[in-house]
């Protein structure tokens, strides 16, 4: 095989590339967001009830172990979706995000010192209010760390969907491969990596701004 480098392809196809990028983001990020929203209550349940923890944490481990292509392929079998349905990629990505975050969220919530939760109850917080304003904020650093891994992995895993006919930048990879188009191939790879790293950096930044107390040096007394 011989690879071609048709540079003019790039300016001629900016619209298609932009569309594929948009689709890729939608395919990758929506599931991460859904996964985050689902994993918080699940993580809370796992932090609270031993039974829930005993079920959720090992289950998360098993789900995280199943290869992405397998999970993508099996979604239609389980959910009855069409073979070419964005859900086939999105459901596995959400599952990975949940599998990754449930354990972190539950560990982070369990790590909140008991005197802090006791103090919050004693000053008169109702349980939901306490969870949202005391326990959850304290878990933010751990959640953000998990989220960064989830987003970056999702950006790269979404490309695998192209093997079973689902769009996004992965499609430029398969297309570039079939047409020996090195420019298309490299453009897709670079876009995936660069966008992933930008989102990662943004999450890092937002996480820092949201948790100023984690940056205080210990033991500065005067």
């Amino acid at each position, binding site marked *: 095989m011989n690879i071609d480098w048709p540079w003019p392809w790039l300016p001629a196809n900016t619209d298609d590339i932009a569309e594929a990028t948009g689709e890729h983001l939608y395919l990758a990020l929506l599931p991460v967001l859904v996964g985050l929203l689902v994993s918080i209550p699940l993580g809370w349940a796992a932090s609270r009830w031993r039974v829930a923890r005993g079920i959720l944490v090992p289950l998360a481990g098993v789900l995280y172990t199943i290869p992405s292509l397998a999970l993508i392929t099996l979604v239609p079998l389980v959910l009855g979706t069409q073979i070419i349905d964005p859900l086939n990629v999105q459901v596995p990505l959400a599952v990975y995000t949940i599998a990754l975050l449930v354990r972190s969220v539950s560990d982070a919530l369990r790590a909140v010192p008991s005197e*802090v939760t006791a*103090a919050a*109850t*004693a000053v*008169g917080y109702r349980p939901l209010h306490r969870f949202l304003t005391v326990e959850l904020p304290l878990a933010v650093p751990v959640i953000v760390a998990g989220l960064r891994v989830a987003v970056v992995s999702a950006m790269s895993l979404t490309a695998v969907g192209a093997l079973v006919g689902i769009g996004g930048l992965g499609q430029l990879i398969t297309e570039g491969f079939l047409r020996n188009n090195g420019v298309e191939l490299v453009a897709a790879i670079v876009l995936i990596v660069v966008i992933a790293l930008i989102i990662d950096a943004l999450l890092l930044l937002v996480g820092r701004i949201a948790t*100023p*107390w984690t940056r205080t040096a210990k033991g500065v007394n005067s």
Partner: protein
Amino acid sequence: MIEFQAVTKQYPDGTVAVDNLDLAVEDGGITVFVGPSGCGKTTSLRMINRMIDPTGGRILLDGKDIRESDPPLLRRGIGYVIQHAGLFPHRTVLDNVATVPLLTGQSRRAARSRAGELLELVGLPAKLAKRYPAQLSGGQQQRVGVARALAADPPVLLMDEPFSAVDPIVRDDLQQQLLRLQSELDKTIVFVTHDIDEAIKLGDRVAVFRVGGRLAQYDDPSALLARPADDFVSSFVGRDRGYRALGFLDAGGVPVGPVATVRAGEQATADQLDDGWAVAVDAENRPLGWVSAELLSTMDGSVNADRLVSGGSLFEVDSSAGTTAGSLRNALDAALSSPSAVGIAIDGDGAVVGGVTADTVLAALADARRAGEVPA
């Protein structure tokens, strides 16, 4: 007034933490729950703000059964301070203190300015307000915890071993401050500790619990020391309780005798001394230290204030009424710690009014013992 009426708490695993407790906590003053570890002090305390619900009996707060109150609302009206302060690590010191005012619907501005006042009240410099709890020392954190509990100006304050995790010097500081705060604010404070010294120091009334969650004795501290209800209480209050009990005996019965004084900077001769010693005083008659005959002979006639023998502790008497304001323990300590074996008695202005010897204090003690005020 907080009333426990036949309150029992049995945990699901069968442990009876509190057994049929009847106890009334009067308004105002500090009521201390004391007892060995695991005797149910914390459980009793946490039942007051419904962090724990009793399995039997009932608790009345100002005559009203607390079960009729919504727990979060009840808690906003009761301050709670715990051992490691339980500060919220993600909020600044100021915002920690502002928590309850915000919860009760005050504006952020009002809550913060209230928080600022409280930090001052508990003796924290304003520059600490912007810090996070991790940037404070243990003692400072504990003060923030007290400020937070006081923020909504609750009539009742519950404190669970608040000072047991700080070192003794800081603890002493915090205890003094609590007494000062209490005299200013006049809250109803329920204070849990397992340290009998702390209980006696802080308590207006002390409830001694025995293991199994039963009340062994509920009395004021002096009565507790003088007349322990049973062997458990007497062993719990300790072997030196006789000496400690002196702290509660009025030294009024101790006759204050004359003591020789010389004025610093002025001429003095050996025959002004009494038994070889005299107290050097300043122009207002306040004690500066002791001069011995031997020392005076090296001073070429005039009393040198820089070369005195430092004296022992002082004890205060109310000279107008002719009785002592201090305790027998103060009087005995003054006599024992003095180089001349005479304890210096001073009046409210700090001026020397006389002296006591250990013998006279012990004679007074013997009288008190005969009167049944001290355990034999």
